[in-house]
């Protein structure tokens, strides 16, 4: 607990400024490198928090099931553009809280890279998916948004189109655009928008149908076996 706070401070006060400073000194094009390193530093405190909690076997396996479900889920839905990953991550965030939601998202991104292979986007995907799970956890924490199909579907639509998608578009800007300015960022967002919109819509549909049943199943598992934050 305490260690992860120290790590967070170290990341924000030392590592990020240092990376930006060194990045500006590099002879050559350093956007992608600097950006990716910053993303990697930002991921560290989350994982340290997870390590610090010393998760018990049941909790750990439950998280693993949600990650595997997010990676393998696309096989269960043989429809184009329907990627189960976002839906499962968002529902995990809602059911298991922001911290676990982040871990589910980040690990899903990491593992699907081993199975489907994309590479250069990996740290960014970990951050984007993790952020999606975490945002869902915060938005649906006790006493906030109601855990009903329509609000959950709307929330997932917005979080894919405004949070997860744009983070990946920023990576595209850093990787393939001549320079990182407002206009090239806007262009990346614009070119990514159709894909993001389709994925947001399909995710919303999935969450609408799947959200409540899957939540109930998770709640039941939590209640029956006493896992996680009941």
């Amino acid at each position: 607990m305490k260690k992860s706070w120290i790590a967070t401070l170290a990341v924000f006060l030392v590592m990020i400024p240092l990376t930006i400073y060194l990045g500006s000194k590099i002879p050559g094009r350093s956007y992608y490198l600097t950006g990716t390193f910053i993303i990697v530093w930002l991921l560290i405190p989350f994982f340290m928090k997870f390590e610090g909690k010393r998760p018990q076997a049941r909790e750990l396996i439950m998280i693993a099931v949600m990650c595997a479900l997010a990676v393998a889920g696309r096989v269960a839905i043989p429809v184009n553009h329907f990627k189960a990953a976002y839906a499962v991550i968002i529902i995990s965030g809602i059911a298991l809280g922001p911290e676990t939601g982040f871990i589910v998202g980040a690990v899903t991104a990491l593992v699907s890279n081993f199975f489907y292979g994309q590479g250069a986007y990996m740290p960014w995907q970990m951050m984007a998916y993790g952020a999606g799970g975490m945002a869902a956890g915060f938005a649906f924490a006790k006493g906030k948004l109601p855990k009903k199909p329509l609000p959950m579907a709307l929330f997932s639509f917005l979080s894919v189109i405004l949070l997860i998608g744009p983070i990946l578009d920023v990576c595209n800007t850093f990787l393939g655009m001549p320079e990182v300015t407002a206009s090239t960022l806007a262009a990346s967002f614009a070119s990514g928008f159709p894909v993001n919109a389709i994925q947001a819509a399909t995710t919303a549909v999935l969450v609408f149908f799947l959200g409540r049943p899957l939540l109930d199943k998770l709640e039941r598992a939590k209640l029956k076996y006493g896992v996680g934050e009941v």
Partner: protein
Amino acid sequence: MTHDAFSKCHPSVNFVFFILAICFGAVFQHPAYIAAGIVSSGTYYVLLNGKKSIKSFLRLLLLFCFISFINPVFNTRGDTVLFKLFSRPYTLEALIYGASIASVFVITMLWFGCWNKVMTGEKITCLFGGVAPALSILLVTVFRMVPEMIRTAKRIVSARLSIGKGGAEKLSERARSGASALGALASLSLEGSVTTGDSMRARGYGTGKRTSFSVYGFRRRDGALMILVAALAAAVIAFAFRGATRAVFLPERYFAPLSGANAAGLAAYCILLLTPTVMHIREVISWNISKSAI
């Protein structure tokens, strides 16, 4: 290809090599360095992926063209105007600059493609098992669960088809049916997970400090390779800071000359990047020699 000599080295050597290759590849814009990067990453990619690499190359070529052609749209500097687009000049200089960015992109993607083949899941967990034990066991568990879940998902889908569900033509029906199949998969896996968790607890998970085991020993060869990689990388960095990789595209093209000491920098870079390829080819040759000796 299962016989890759570089993949058999200690994961730390693989890791350091790829991090360096990707960092250098993402930064250097000097044409000679770009050429070295594309040739070495492309060769190694082909050695690792065989015929499958043609498809990836075509996809990368498409992305290369896209990134090259998009740059002049934003970047209007340069004197040689090719034509006007939306009443803004589309210049040759910006196009060349775009091509260099696209090449850097291609190199990064190719190295990551090789990384995916070499840095397998158990190598990552071997490297980070000591530092992040909970994350490592989570990763190992997920790696094991995914293929099993894919099989289960296929079973569920075909079982649903045989009772007349999920084959509908209407998109909304199919999406709904997919959600049901996913729900069934979740129930099945969640129930099973608790048994797994209890079984882990019964075997003493979480009772003490987690130890880690690795099949990879750090041998003398790995040490020598690590020193070689580090020395070459240090040389490349030193030359880069002396300006050997300097490349300016706009407003006027200037590339650092490759004569004299700068040639040594490029040579170090080439040797560094070609290390896995050379190791792979050497192994193939010695393998064939010993096979023909039988």
